[in-house]
């Protein structure tokens, strides 16, 4: 998602979006980010513009003021946008190192930047991105495992259903499911789930 890994192409600067209702604080942050080599694609003042801005401008990172009510809007966007979840980084001027450590340890998808100096921003954003990607990968693996487990359960239940309703043996029931899967070009688990849902309606 972030910069190109191919060293032959010049790295595109990371696109950052700032969400803060305080114009002066937002301007300072923009200056610091620009000096640190980031491209600030937008400074937003309120939540209502957020969904369209995230969709249209495709920022790599969203930075939001810790005290902003718009954090809840961002929660919704990152939960409901499947293709490109992005790290949300919080900033506050009074966040101590302890708060940052606690937040990182707890694995909340947010990090606190205290102070706005350019030399401090880059390492924090890099750590945030790296941790976000690691968390994403873990979440995807977990979801994949859960899906497989659920599919296996569905296949077992669908087999049971076929055995009971059609008087098939376990082997025959399994072959029937596989035949349906091949015929419809779907995964075995999907076919099993469709069958169970249909049975549920009858």
């Amino acid at each position: 998602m972030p910069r190109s890994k191919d060293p032959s192409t010049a790295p595109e600067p990371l696109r950052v979006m700032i969400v803060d209702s305080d114009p002066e604080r937002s301007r300072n942050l923009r200056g610091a980010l620009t000096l640190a080599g980031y491209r600030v694609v937008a400074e937003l003042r309120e939540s209502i513009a957020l969904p369209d801005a995230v969709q249209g401008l495709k920022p790599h990172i969203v930075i939001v003021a810790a005290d902003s009510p718009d954090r809840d809007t961002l929660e919704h966007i990152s939960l409901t946008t499947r293709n490109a979840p992005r790290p949300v980084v919080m900033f506050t001027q009074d966040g101590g190192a302890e708060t940052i450590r606690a937040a990182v340890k707890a694995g909340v998808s947010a990090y606190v930047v205290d102070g706005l100096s350019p030399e401090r921003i880059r390492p924090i954003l890099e750590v945030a991105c790296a941790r976000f990607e690691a968390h994403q990968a873990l979440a995807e693996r977990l979801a994949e495992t859960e899906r497989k487990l659920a599919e296996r359960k569905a296949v077992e239940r669908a087999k049971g259903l076929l055995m009971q309703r059609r008087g098939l043996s376990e082997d025959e029931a399994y072959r029937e499911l596989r035949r349906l899967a091949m015929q419809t070009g779907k995964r075995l688990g999907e076919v099993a789930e469709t069958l169970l849902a249909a049975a549920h309606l009858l």
Partner: protein
Amino acid sequence: MREPHRVRVGYIPLTDCAPVVMAALKGHDRRHGIHIELTRAPSWAAIRDGLITGALDAAHALYGLVYGVEMGIGTSPQAMAVLMTLNRNGQAITLTRRLFERGVTDGTSFARLIRADPRRYTFAQTFPTGTHALWLYYWLASHGVHPFRDIGNLTVSPPQMVAHLASGSIDGYCAGEPWNAHAVERGTGFTVATSQGIWPEHPEKVLACAEPFVSAQPAVACALIRAVLEACRDLDTEQGRREAAQALSGPDYLDVPAMVLEDRLQGRYVDGLGGAWVDAHPVRFHDHGQVNYPWLSDGMWFLTQFKRWGLLASHPDYVSVARRVNRIALYREAAAELGIPTPEAEMRSAVLMDGRVWDGSAPQAYAEGFAIQGMMWSDAA
């Protein structure tokens, strides 16, 4: 004398933050050997992070939010605890006056308009796993409107709702009070449905904490339950509600006129279309402890809706999750010390607006039995 134990409690400025605020203002905390230090939070996300990181010990929280964190929706899973329910009922769905001008007065006329012109209108709620999102989705789906396919759907913080409704950037919202009464009073919107019209006597906010707090300091958690229970008991009297309306209207809390708060707090509704009534299921904080007891079926219901809307990919073990989150034993201990009765049962039965019965007995079938359901993903961006 021993110094009272400090307990940091977060809240969002809403009418139903009354139990935690009044527990501190009326000195119930001191009587139980604790000192409640109140923190007004800027967002539900801040409440969640505060609980997880330990910056907050406990909080006034959306029921669904606590279960969302427990299940790792939007964050890594964190063990959470519901100490007690703070209130039932008292939320609402507000629509803009402009929809009234297009002939919308109720759910049926609303659904007709949406079906004629899908995806044109946008509705807001307060947190993706929160109660208001789920009340809104339930109400829409009961009228045949899909909350992710037929309308635009976003999260907005409650105090911003009325302004966005007035500017036309949203067409309606589901939120807590006083933000629905406020829209009626301003003439920008009308109340098309109350949350108690969706589920009479539904659970709403809870007193929540992260699991490490309650396991490390069960006696403090128990004292906190007692202090807040006493506040809840006061709040079910007319006098208690009047006091709360006065206190919460101040600039430290909601900063709105006490009258805007008090009417719906006392169950008196005007809908902005000429309708006025005294509600049979007003916001309730105690009801002899029936409200506060952390019923397992209440917690489980939120899991069924997470599954329904694709926030959970597969069925959780509904009862086990509720049993580890809702601290019934600790609640019983606190209630017993105050002489407040507790039910024997762990489940209660309800009939929701679409006629479906929820009693916690068959959660998987319940979650699968909705005609309108499905993933909340949008593939844009």
